[in-house]
């Protein structure tokens, strides 16, 4: 059992938490951007028809 195990686990754990949560954040941002783009497209189409 290495002496500094908690620190090593913390370092790798935090790395994964930070990277994965940023990736998740990016995923959400992308979904939001897509939703806005779809809405904008529909608004433009609807406006054209009306």
């Amino acid at each position, binding site marked *: 059992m*290495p*002496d*500094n*195990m908690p*620190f*090593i686990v*913390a*370092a*790798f754990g*935090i*790395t994964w938490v*930070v*990277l*994965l949560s*940023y*990736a998740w954040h*990016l*995923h959400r*941002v*992308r*979904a*939001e*951007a*897509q939703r*806005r*783009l*779809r*809405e*904008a*497209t529909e*608004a*433009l*189409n609807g*406006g*054209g028809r*009306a």
Partner: protein
Amino acid sequence: MGVSTADLTMASATQSRTRGAWAGIGIFVLLALTQWIAISISVPDRDMGHLQKIMYVHVPAAWNMMIAYFVVAIFSLRYLWKGQERDDLIAAAAAESGAVLTGLLLVLGMIWAKPTWGIWWTWDARLTSSAVLFFMYVGYLILRAFVDDPDRRAQWSAAVGLLGALNVPIVYMSVRWWRTLHQPQSSPSTVDPNYVIGLRINAIAFLIVLIYFIRHRYESAKMERAADQLHERAALATRGGINA
């Protein structure tokens, strides 16, 4: 015509989204793999013992942080030169990813410092200048958040990104001098050849993660801009209809 290009953007966006998600999973599996390889092939260090393994996340984060800021500087310069919105969005995406990596780096530095020197923070030249860098690029991102006009935001943040990049070597040098005047530099331990291969593959895995982040962020930003432009056009079309 505008509608059809928007539809096209939508279709490709949906497609690339599923592809992007799979790429993301693959990239993180690769990162886990390189970490596992590096950990399993490295023997405990003479001085640091198993603590050395933190190096496999700390050093790649540091290297890739510098790469991210280099990308910010290059694309800021390119934006001022050519004035294409694309370059501005890439610089912004790189700044955000770079800030995430720097934040991670600072926390890892503290985790490293505690068992090594018995303190959470040391005014080591590299750690301290990373903290300054972190604040410089957080400032860049906050500036972007506070400016609404896209042209203004692009020009201003390009100038801020360039001046910040110019300052990076000056900050590092000044902090190093300041440190050496007060107390001896913390031993810059030369890296054992055993660890080099582990470091290299992890740095490459981190680089792939960074590229994935920048691309992802850039594509979202591009979609947001496209949506804004469509909204503007829709507003104009409505007004035209009323007048007619």
